[in-house]
C-alpha cells in the first residue's frame, strides 16, 4: 500500500504522514505527477487560506495531478482546505474559483449566536451517511477535530456523506464515487481519526 500526499506548499503536511506511518502505510509527500499517478491512494490535504492554497495548487500543476488521480478511479481523500478546494467557488479572500470537481460553494460561518466562535475549532460529533465505507467501525456520534472558518455547501445532496453542527447543520464530509473529503482532521482526531484513515487505506 502506497499513499501519495499531494505537496503544494499548503501548511503542515507531516501530521498526515505521521498518522499513516503509525498505521503501517508507506507514504510520500510529493509534487511529482508521476509519483502521484503510481500511488495506490492519494491524499489532498490543506491548511491555510483558500486563495493562497489555490494559487500554489495551480502554480505547482498539482491541480492537474489531482484531477488525473480522481479520473483514474483510485481512492482520493481531501482534508480540510483540501475538501473546500474541490468545490466550484469559495467566498474566502474576497472570492476564489476552486478546482470544481464537485458542484457547490464554500461559505463563511456567520453564527447569529455570539457565543459560537469562528474559527470553529475543537471536537464536534459527526454523523455519517448510512453505509459510508470510511465510517465502518466508528461509533455513531464520535467527535472529530475541526479547525476552520469556512464550510462546504455541495449542490447535490447525494454528495454529502457527513454532517456536524455549528450554529446550524453543516456538511462535514463529501463523497462522489472514489473521491471523498472531510472538513475535520482525521490525523488529529485520536483513535476514531486513525480508524477513519485505516478505512481509507482499506477502501
Amino acid at each position: 500500500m502506497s499513499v501519495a500526499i499531494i505537496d503544494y506548499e499548503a501548511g503542515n503536511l507531516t501530521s498526515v504522514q505521521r498518522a499513516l506511518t503509525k498505521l503501517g502505510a508507506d507514504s510520500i509527500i510529493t509534487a511529482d505527477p508521476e509519483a502521484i499517478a503510481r500511488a495506490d491512494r492519494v491524499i489532498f490535504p490543506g491548511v491555510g487560506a483558500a486563495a493562497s492554497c489555490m494559487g500554489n495548487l495551480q502554480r505547482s500543476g498539482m491541480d492537474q495531478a489531482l484531477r488525473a488521480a480522481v479520473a483514474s478511479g483510485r481512492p482520493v481523500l481531501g482534508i480540510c482546505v483540501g475538501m473546500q478546494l474541490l468545490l466550484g467557488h469559495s467566498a474566502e479572500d474576497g472570492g476564489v474559483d476552486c478546482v470544481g470537481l464537485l458542484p457547490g460553494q464554500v461559505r463563511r460561518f456567520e453564527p447569529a449566536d455570539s457565543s459560537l466562535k469562528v474559527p470553529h475549532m475543537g471536537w464536534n460529533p459527526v454523523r455519517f451517511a448510512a453505509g459510508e465505507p470510511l465510517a465502518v467501525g466508528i461509533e455513531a456520534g464520535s467527535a472529530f477535530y475541526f479547525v476552520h472558518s469556512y464550510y462546504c455547501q455541495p449542490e447535490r445532496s447525494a454528495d454529502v456523506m457527513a454532517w456536524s453542527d455549528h450554529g446550524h447543520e453543516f456538511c462535514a464530509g463529501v463523497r462522489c464515487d472514489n473521491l471523498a473529503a472531510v472538513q475535520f482532521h482525521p490525523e488529529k482526531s485520536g483513535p476514531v481519526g486513525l480508524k477513519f484513515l485505516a478505512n481509507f487505506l482499506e477502501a
Partner: protein
Amino acid sequence: MSLLKRVIVCLDVRAGQVTKGIKFQGNVDLGDPVEYARRYYEQGVDELVFYDITASAEQRDLFIDVVERVAAEIFIPFSVGGGIRSVDSMRQVLLAGAEKVSVNSPAVRDPSLITGGAKAFGAQCVVLGMDAKKVPATAAIPSGYEVVIDGGRTPTGKDALAWAKEAEDRGAGEICLNAIDTDGVRNGYELTITRMVADAVGIPVIASGGGGEPQHLVDAVTTGGADAALIASMVHYGDYTVDGIKTAMRAAGVGVR
C-alpha cells in the same frame, strides 16, 4: 450536538523531563513527557500543551526531540510554549509536529510576534498565553487584572482585558488565560477574569490555573464561559484521570468528548 468543551493537560518540561512547580517556585521532576502524553491520550484528553520552562539554548534540542517523539505517537492537537521568541522558532516547533504555538512574555515585549505568527501560519496556530494577577482597579488597569510576565515576576502595567482584545486584533487564534494567584494551588479557576475575557473576545478562551477537582472545570466552562480548561497537577499526581474528570463533567451536564 455542537462543539464540545475541551480538557487540556499541560506538561511543563525541563531538561527533557515533566516537572511541576507551585506558583513557579520549587519544581519536582515527574518523568518522561512522551509516557505522560501517551497516558493522557489513552484517557481521552482533547489536547496537550508542552511548556519548555527552561528554554535554554542547550536544552532546546532536547525539547524539540520531545516534540517530535510526541508527534509520532499522539494523534490529537498539541501546542508548544516557552522559548518562542521569533517566527523562526514558531516554525521549528510546528515542523516538529506541534499544531499550535503559545506565546507569553515575548509577545508582551514585542506584540508583532503575534501578528507575524498569524500571517505566516494562520491565526489557528497562534495561542496567546497570558498570566493575569488581581490588582486594585485603576485608570490604567480598569479590569482590576494586570498582565504579569516572566513567570509572574514582572508586572507590565497592562490591563489583562485590553491585552486580550489587542491580541485578538493582532491575529491570535486562542487565549490561554492563566490566573497567577490560583496557579498550582488547586482551589478553582479565577472565574471573574475568565468570564470577562471570554465575553470580550470572539476567539476561544482556555481557563488555566487552579484546577483541583472536576467541579472546578465545570465552573470554568459554565460560570467562567471558557471553551476549555487546562489542568496539570490534578492528573500528574494520579489523584484524578482525564476520563474520570470527563465523566464527572458529563454528569454535570457539560458536553465533552
